[in-house]
């Protein structure tokens, strides 16, 4: 029987599920758009997984990361629930052990992670400005009527440089329209956009940080060759794109889950693939017990509340049997 570890990254735009075996080989990877329904896409992904994996695989550990990590983690019984920054760094370190700088651009956020001697020493994360993320490109691809998949290739065919204001999506868009009216081609505009995005990203996140090679670029946006070229131009150095660039968060958290169960020797909390057949009903309500009026998100299974999130005081979160106590004892080892 082969032992395997599942990593799930529930991001704003996509849901990624991967399985690694004992030797860190990725035996399954699944990348799908969440379309605003992460719960559903995790279910579909797990069903897909069940169909495709051989019967003799035993799940030894499960990890979740991404913005939906807590909710999904509780639902499926994850052993490790980790933030995206640590997860991404763990995966990159596995593939590029001497990495110094990680660029990660996802759908709704972007990060820079600085490492020294295989340890994260600094990071920054942008979540307030869309001008440095995948959503911005997505939106522009729709506006220009160029499928996002062709974006990068088209950018590389640009003959002239055009500078587009990338500080803010709103300004970028009006500047783009102006440049279109000046007669620049679509390819040139797209190339300008890629450069603007990278410029904005480096200015926002890289401020005050010494960026040193080797550079690794990952996240969904790394598929875009135009952005890749713009990065190489900006930092003046070759950029490494890992093979599984778009599921690195999931790989990282699977590695962390593997380390965790190996260290503690405890059996996995994973509730099994049957969770995909159970009907989870997420809903939200405003708790009116105090004037904080928290928006509480709850998940019900067969009419029973199994998970709750979002309350400041912890009344709802604690009411559904949290395993905080167990964790505290375990982490003290």
């Amino acid at each position, binding site marked *: 029987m082969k032992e395997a570890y599942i990593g799930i990254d529930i991001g704003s735009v996509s849901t990624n599920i991967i399985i690694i075996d004992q030797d860190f080989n990725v035996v399954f990877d699944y990348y799908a758009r969440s379309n605003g329904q992460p719960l559903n896409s995790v279910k579909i992904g797990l069903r897909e997984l069940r169909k495709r994996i051989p019967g003799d695989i035993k799940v030894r550990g499960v990890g979740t990361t991404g*913005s939906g990590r807590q909710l999904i983690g509780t639902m499926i019984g994850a052993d490790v629930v*980790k*933030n*995206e*920054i*640590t997860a991404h760094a*763990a995966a990159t*370190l*596995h593939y590029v052990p001497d990495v110094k700088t990680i660029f990660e651009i996802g759908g709704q*956020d972007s990060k820079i992670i600085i490492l020294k*001697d*295989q*340890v*994260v*020493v*600094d*990071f920054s*994360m942008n*979540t307030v400005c869309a001008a440095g993320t995948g959503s911005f490109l997505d939106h522009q691809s729709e506006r220009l009527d160029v499928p996002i998949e062709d974006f990068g290739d088209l950018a590389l065919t640009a003959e002239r440089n055009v500078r587009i204001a990338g500080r803010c999506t709103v300004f970028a868009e009006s500047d783009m329209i102006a440049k279109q009216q000046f007669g620049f081609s679509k390819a040139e505009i797209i190339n300008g956009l890629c450069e603007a995005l990278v410029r904005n990203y480096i200015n926002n996140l890289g401020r*005050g*940080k010494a960026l040193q090679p080797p550079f690794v670029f990952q996240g969904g946006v790394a598929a875009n060759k135009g952005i890749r070229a713009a990065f190489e131009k900006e930092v003046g150095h070759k950029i490494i794109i890992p093979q599984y660039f778009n599921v690195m968060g999931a790989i990282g958290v699977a*590695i*962390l889950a593997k*380390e965790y169960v190996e260290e503690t020797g405890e059996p996995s909390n994973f509730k099994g693939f049957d969770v995909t057949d159970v009907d989870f009903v997420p809903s939200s309500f405003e708790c009116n017990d*105090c*004037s*904080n*009026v*928290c928006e509480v998100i709850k998940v019900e299974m067969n009419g029973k509340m199994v998970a709750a999130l979002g309350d*400041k005081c*912890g009344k709802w979160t*604690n009411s559904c049997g*949290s395993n*905080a*106590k167990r964790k*505290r*004892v375990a*982490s*003290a080892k």
Partner: protein
Amino acid sequence: MKISFPHMSPVIVYKRLLEMFGHEVVVPPTPTQKTFDLGVKHSPEFACFPLKVILGSYIEAIEMGAQMIMTSGGHGPCRAGYYGELHSRILKNLGYDVEIVIIDAIFPKFNDFIKKARKITNGASIFKVAKVFKVVYNLSKAIDRIEKRIEKMRAYEVNEGDCDKVWDKILKKFDKVNTIAEVEAIEKEAYGMLDNVPVVKVEEDSKIRVGVIGEIYVVMESSVNMEIEKTLGKLGVETERSQYLSDWIEHNIIPKFMRDKKIDNIIDEGKEFIEIEIGGHAVENVGYIKHFKERGFDGIIHLMPFGCLPELVNQSIVPTIIEKFDLPVLTIPIDEQTGKANNQTRIEAFVDLIKGKKELRLNNGKSKIS
């Protein structure tokens, strides 16, 4: 006359101070989303976050019957100095009939200070004033000592939230104190209560300590800083702040020749990075980074209200400090838009970063992947 004050923990100290002078006190409710909304609605957009929260807090207190509000003034380039005046105008325009008493430094306007101080002391004799002040001073010291112990214990409690339950009970006990002897007795009892909280034993070497520095209001009032200390405690991190009420009293009210020089020394340390007085607690905060580093802390969390000038200057000094002291610093801007989820991710990653660095040090340069 019913009297109130800004909600900045520990409120019990201000409450006892005013009550002992015979005032009827309205304790403003702990700031919640409603307070933020009220404050934001009636404040200038570019005012910093503390002004907005405190305004909301005043409105809530007034609606509970407060007729007079006691607050502190300020000097130097930080805008806090004119906030009392601004609050009083906004409240007047909103049609609230309330008197705001802004206590400024004793000098240069000595007469003005005495006039205002009399309103607070309510005609008490100089002996009574001295006595009340001593009790309140001791109370603030006792509370801060206990809280410092809780800030350490939270990281290791077996049942999440135990320490905070005890803390609430302890604060309720302090609610009736009148003498120094009572303060001492309750402090002793409090330690006994804390001794009974079950904790996990952790090796001294693997303990993680983080200093929380920044603008005084967002550092001291946990309801506006996403309960940063509790959040860190849950992640198994000991904390200590740069701001405590007793330190503030010591530094701002006790005359220089009598006081403990701790804060003065820390400010001197900070002058290495900021040579001139730029307002707020900027210099002190930078000094604290050095102070925490010398005491072996593993990292610093720097809280900054959005648009706070002194802390904005500090933020720009942070990269230099990270390099010089090899100490990780995470700056978190705080305002009404602050999203807890994003910051939770940042804080968790920051704690992982500290753990990774620490492990590296303990294993003499060999690291694991995480």
